[in-house]
Each structure stands twice: as structure tokens, then as C-alpha cells.
């Protein structure tokens, strides 16, 4: 398994963190810049969640497509698979969204995503007294631990 990259967004769509391990296709051939890339990724997640909420077969009364849903309500998605890569998605109760792109030969990484959230993000970022919530971060300790953790995945 190859891990390509990881994004962390807050609930307002600000990209708090971006890590990259391998990216055979340059950002320039996609969205253009990393900032645009992150915006586009958040847009994709946001719309996919709206689509999932509208389709959700377990709801008797459907929400109209695109109707505003309070955070934590509606139906979210766990992952999607394309012919080249697999995107794993975690939407935490506080609205922090973690996105991990890997090669498609993996099963569900839901547990591992929660580990990234609870033992890496919460431990090293949220508990850091110098960190202002909602600001992008570049914490060395977090990055080190994350690299180590991702290495154990593959």
C-alpha cells in the first residue's frame, strides 16, 4: 500500500494541515496550486456529503438536495475508490475532517483514521498550549509521529 497525501480541514473549510509522501501527478497538472487544490478537495467533500444526505435510503422523509444540514446530522461517507487511488474520509464530531489518499489495494482504514485524530491530532495539536484553534499548523512533533504512523500502515 502507498500513502499519497493527507489533508486536515476544520469545519469552515480551512486547510489546517497538508502532508505529502508521494504524489506522482504534480499539483500543477491538477488544480494548479496547493491552496486551490485544498479548496477543491473541500468542495468535493462538501458536495459529496450533500449528495449522500439526499440519497440516504434510511430516511423516510428525504432532505432536498443541498438543504443546509446541522453539523453531525445527515449521512456521511467513509471512502471512495477510483481506478487509481482510494480516498478515506473521517468527519469528527467537532467538524474536523481528515482525508487520506492511498493506493486502492486497502480495505477500510476507519480505525487508523481515528488513531490519527485521537492520538496524533488531539495529543499534539489540540493539547499544545501555543496553538490557536482554527489556525493552520506545522507542528514538528506531529509531523514526525504522523510519518512514523503512516509508515506502519504500508
Amino acid at each position, binding site marked *: 500500500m502507498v500513502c499519497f497525501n493527507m489533508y486536515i480541514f476544520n469545519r469552515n473549510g480551512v486547510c489546517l494541515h497538508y502532508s505529502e509522501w508521494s504524489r506522482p501527478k504534480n499539483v500543477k497538472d491538477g*488544480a494548479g496550486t496547493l491552496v486551490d487544490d485544498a479548496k477543491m478537495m473541500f468542495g468535493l467533500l462538501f458536495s459529496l456529503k450533500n449528495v449522500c444526505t439526499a440519497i440516504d435510503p434510511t430516511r423516510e422523509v428525504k432532505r432536498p438536495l443541498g438543504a443546509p444540514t446541522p453539523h453531525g446530522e445527515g449521512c456521511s461517507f467513509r471512502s471512495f475508490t477510483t481506478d487509481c487511488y482510494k480516498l478515506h474520509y473521517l468527519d469528527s464530531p467537532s467538524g474536523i475532517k481528515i482525508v487520506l489518499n492511498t493506493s486502492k489495494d486497502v480495505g477500510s482504514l476507519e480505525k487508523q483514521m481515528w488513531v490519527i485524530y485521537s492520538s496524533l491530532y488531539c495529543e499534539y495539536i489540540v493539547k499544545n498550549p501555543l496553538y490557536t484553534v482554527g489556525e493552520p499548523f506545522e507542528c514538528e512533533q506531529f509531523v514526525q509521529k504522523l510519518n512514523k504512523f503512516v509508515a506502519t500502515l504500508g
Partner: protein
Amino acid sequence: MLLSLYIVNKSGGLIYHRDFSSLAKLDTNDTLRLGSIWHSLHAISSQLSPVPGCKGIELLQAETFDLHNFQTPTGIKFFAVAECNSQGVDRFLKRVYGLYADYVLKNPFYELDMPIRCELFDLQLTSEVTLTMNA
């Protein structure tokens, strides 16, 4: 279990939609919009790919359903909503593509990229769905 089937033409217009269960029933306007939105999300997912040559989403795993997508080389998308971990949906979509080629494209009254109104296609699709559901 299959819940619904959508066919979207190469420019993102919904040309066919059918629900196989009352659970999947959506507002008509929403189905049209869903087809177009799916078309764009599919395109964005291939643009955001970290690997070159990506063609777009094939399977979306949501909390309460799976969405399987099959795109033909000509750009028509067949996608089906099914219950989580349903088997044989990809094969079903390919069979529907076969039915589309046989009963829609070979219909002399059918205009390309227009909504599909072919009785034979409907009938064949119904039997294909029964086959998949009972498999």
C-alpha cells in the same frame, strides 16, 4: 440489494432514472440535479488524483449505502445506489450497458443523448434487476 439506477450522458444530463425500492424515492428535480452533480464530482475526483491518468470514482461507500459507478469509453455514466456491501452491482451495470447498446442505441427513433423512452429497454432492465436481486 439494488435501490436505484441512473444513466447520465457525456455532458452531464440525466437520461434515465429508475427506483427499485420506495426507500430510494427522490424528488424529480433532485434526481435531475443529482445526475449533473455526480457528473461534476466525478470529474473533480479525477482532477484531484495524486496519480496521473485517473478516470474518476468507481465506488462511493457511504454510511447507509454504496454507490457504484461505471463509465463507458464514450463518457456515459451508469450509476446505481445499492445497500452496503451488495455484491454483483458492477456486473449489473455492465449488463445494463449491454442492454443500452442493444435496445436503446439500436432503436431507430432514439436520438443520442436524449432521455431514454424505450419500452423494450424498460422490460429487459426489469428482468435484469430481478436476476441481480435474486442472485
